[in-house]
């Protein structure tokens, strides 16, 4: 109440001052309320729209702080919460909107104490909201569950933690499988290699060697226990999958005092790049026959953000640049041969960084956990300049998200896919965005997954585009979404 009185007093005093001017009836410094975001959303009747309704109250471009904003549903019968709110330091106020129970246009009118005019939002309740089409769901043992899926040539390699690697025919095998009806070929548990916690299979990459023509090796990441930002454990395992029905582990690589995370390959040059958490980025020669301890095959290692300060989540090679997403330090461009960092200064670090994807001259990085009170609820968007060096453009927020854990772009570049976990009912799951403007993706579909999706792998199989999602425990599963129609 005291705050409200102060606001009123402030507005009143500005009116008094305005009265000294030439137009006391319509003073030029009257606060104005405008729509800032969340307009023109749609969803199923009775559901909450995914983005917050956001208004700004300003006075000649300067924010008006602490003014009471009133929200009112004037058509459509939905509910807005709260009914009143107070503008923040930017002059902004937000509210959540739940669509009315029937199909149709909803209208929300917003006014601010002492401000001229109103802001008006429309939202549409429709029975055909855009959703990615779930075509199959395969239960994975809750032996922690599923972390990631690698799909190539119609074969899916499911990283099923202590249940190992599960190999499925999803259109490319001999079992008649498809994304709609995956057929299990085999499963294989890689060795724990003395790492506490067991096999902890986290991710994989099926190496198609263009030099030898071999498709013999599957690289498997083991994510052992660690302390985020500081320590990690887990080895790179090499599994011979010449016979997909009978995989056999043949080699491993350990970086001392560090654990492997996501990796990428330069197959033409037979080099594997791996993010190794506190071990930074490691390049490994994987030419020829792989057997036993591969530690002598390490070509180079570097630390985005410096040794002792790095905790690198993932890498990706694109257009002659190796990109690295470091949880603590941000997004980096590296020389793929020397692993020298091209943008050594720490960049956007207001949130922890998670996964990355690069398409053309635009990069995307996910965000993770909570840092300085800011949730990992955003996709950071980067313009890639000369030599691949990224420049931060903006953060696209996904309201309610706790972690944007995986990012990918479809091969044709039309869609951006992100998975969200640790969020709420309007954020956990699969998000698909149109890349009509790559620097400002538009929400195209959202599929809610209650426990969140940990990862989403994009794969094109028989002309259709799918996302292979990893549903979190307590009921872990491989969720396969067909997003082909969203490409139109």
């Amino acid at each position: 109440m005291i705050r409200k009185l102060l606001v009123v007093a402030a507005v009143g005093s500005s009116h008094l001052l305005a009265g000294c001017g030439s137009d006391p009836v319509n003073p030029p410094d009257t606060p104005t309320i405008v729509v800032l975001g969340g307009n023109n959303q749609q969803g199923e009747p009775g559901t909450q729209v995914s983005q917050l309704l956001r208004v700004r109250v300003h006075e000649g471009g300067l924010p008006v702080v602490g003014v009471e904003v009133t929200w009112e549903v004037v058509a459509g019968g939905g509910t807005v919460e709260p009914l009143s709110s107070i503008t923040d330091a930017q002059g902004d106020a937000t509210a959540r909107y739940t669509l009315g129970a029937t199909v149709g246009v909803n209208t929300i009118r917003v006014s601010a104490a002492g401000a001229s005019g109103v802001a008006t939002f429309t939202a549409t309740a429709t029975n055909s909201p855009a959703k990615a089409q779930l075509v199959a769901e395969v239960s994975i043992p809750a032996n922690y569950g599923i972390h990631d899926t690698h799909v190539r040539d119609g074969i899916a390699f499911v990283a099923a933690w202590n249940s190992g690697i599960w190999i499925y025919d999803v259109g490319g095998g001999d079992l008649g499988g498809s994304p709609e009806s995956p057929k299990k070929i085999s499963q294989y548990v890689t060795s724990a290699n003395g790492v506490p916690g067991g096999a902890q299979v986290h991710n994989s990459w099926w190496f198609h060697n263009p030099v030898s023509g071999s498709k013999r090796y599957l690289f498997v990441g083991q994510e052992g226990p660690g302390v985020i930002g500081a320590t990690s454990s887990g080895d790179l395992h090499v599994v011979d999958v010449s016979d997909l029905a009978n995989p056999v582990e043949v080699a491993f690589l350990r970086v001392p005092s560090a654990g492997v995370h996501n990796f990428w390959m330069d197959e033409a040059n037979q080099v594997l790049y791996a993010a190794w958490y506190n071990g930074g980025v490691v390049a490994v020669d994987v030419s020829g026959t792989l057997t036993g301890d591969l530690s002598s095959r390490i070509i180079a290692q570097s630390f985005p953000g410096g040794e002792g300060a790095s905790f690198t989540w993932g890498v990706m090679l694109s257009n002659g640049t190796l990109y690295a997403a470091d949880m603590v330090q941000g997004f980096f461009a590296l020389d793929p041969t020397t692993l020298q960092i091209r943008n050594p200064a720490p960049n956007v670090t207001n949130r922890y960084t998670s996964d990355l994807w690069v398409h053309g001259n635009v990069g995307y990085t996910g965000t993770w956990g909570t840092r300085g009170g800011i949730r990992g609820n955003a996709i950071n968007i980067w313009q890639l300049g000369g030599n691949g060096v990224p420049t931060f453009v903006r953060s696209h927020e996904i309201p309610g998200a706790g972690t944007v854990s995986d990012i990918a772009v479809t091969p044709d570049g039309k869609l951006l896919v992100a998975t969200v976990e640790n969020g709420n009912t309007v954020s956990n799951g699969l998000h698909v965005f149109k890349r009509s403007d790559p620097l400002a993706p538009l929400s195209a579909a959202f599929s809610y997954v209650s426990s969140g999706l940990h990862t989403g792998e994009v794969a094109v199989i028989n002309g259709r585009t799918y996302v292979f999602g990893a549903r979190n425990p307590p009921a872990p599963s491989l969720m396969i979404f067909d997003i082909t129609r969203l490409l139109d």
Partner: protein
Amino acid sequence: MTRAVCALLLSMGAAPLAAQQSFNVIARGIVTVRHADPAPGGATDTEAYLTQPTLSLSRALGSRLVARFTLNLESATIAGGELAPGAWGEGFVDRRHPHTTVHELLLEARDILGDIDGDWRLGLVAGKGFAPFGTDDPMSRPFLSYPVNHHLAQVLERAVLIGQVRRGPVTLEAALFNGDEPESPGQWPLIRNDSVWRFGDSWSLRALVVPLAGLELQGSIASVHSPEHRQGGGGGHDKVSVSARWQDGNDRGSRYALVEWAQSSELEGTFKLETLLAEAALVRGRWHVSARYESTLRPEEERLADPYKTHRPHIENSILGTLRWNLATLRLAAELAPRGSKAGILPFVEVTGGHIARVGSGIADAIDIYGTDRVRHFSVGVVIEWQGRNHRMGRYGVLTSHESHH
């Protein structure tokens, strides 16, 4: 019965069987308003509850068997957990989780062989309850706030099979149980998961010695398989606990003190969580004064949209770091019910203050989570009980007594 013998029985729970031939009923609950400062995100939080609502029934079945049942209604009264400084476990953080509705359901043989084994007493306990590890459940101790170390110092709500042997001042216990801790108040221990037994995948050993009347020395070890992952895919916890407990009393009141140290080594020593706790209580007339200090390491995990929750089961085995909670708690209470009454009405004030310190590496930081590293919790309330305090939960068979609480 001499005062010394009384004290001995109080600490060892060796009440004559004849004393428990009847149906013993204890009902208890605490109505409280709790103020937490800080709460996650830097704000404060104030809530009111009925907490620890329990109904304990025990009955002697013949001369050597006792059936015990403790009903806990926290699933109804604190379904979303209870604000408690530093509390964590079972998917809650900065809130104490509600306990399972069937908190204890046990059949206890206190002296299997009777006089045949002379001074020896052999006991066997089976059912759902506490594994013989560590110290008494906080619910049967003087404070409203559970200590931060609850999940380091007790192993509870398991399907247990306990063998006991006692001779003179020494008692040894060995137990098999299931490693999984409950994920919700209505959940029962997982006995078998597909083709793998969970019952028996974990064990504990405890030794208790009463060198002199009133003093109890305890040492125990436990190996708990995958407590935080029900299906068994999680890491193991190797636990150690030692403690010394004093209790005596006379017509003017009672004295109680406990010092304990415990350690839980997780994932083959990857994470080692330690705790040191000392607490004491003095009862004089109607006045109860209690004090506690603890220094406990707490693992920090990624939180969900609800900042009081973490993912269960874990998605992976990493943590964000470790914070040391150094907390001091003072409690003042006064018994309003007339002496000798079956009912108890005990209004209280409880204050906790302290400091959260970062330990080792990682991104966990109190300032980041709470906006401060200072802790100030305040609670007022009233304990309402019928037929006395809770029994010493976790003490069964040859250790039990209908009156062995402080």
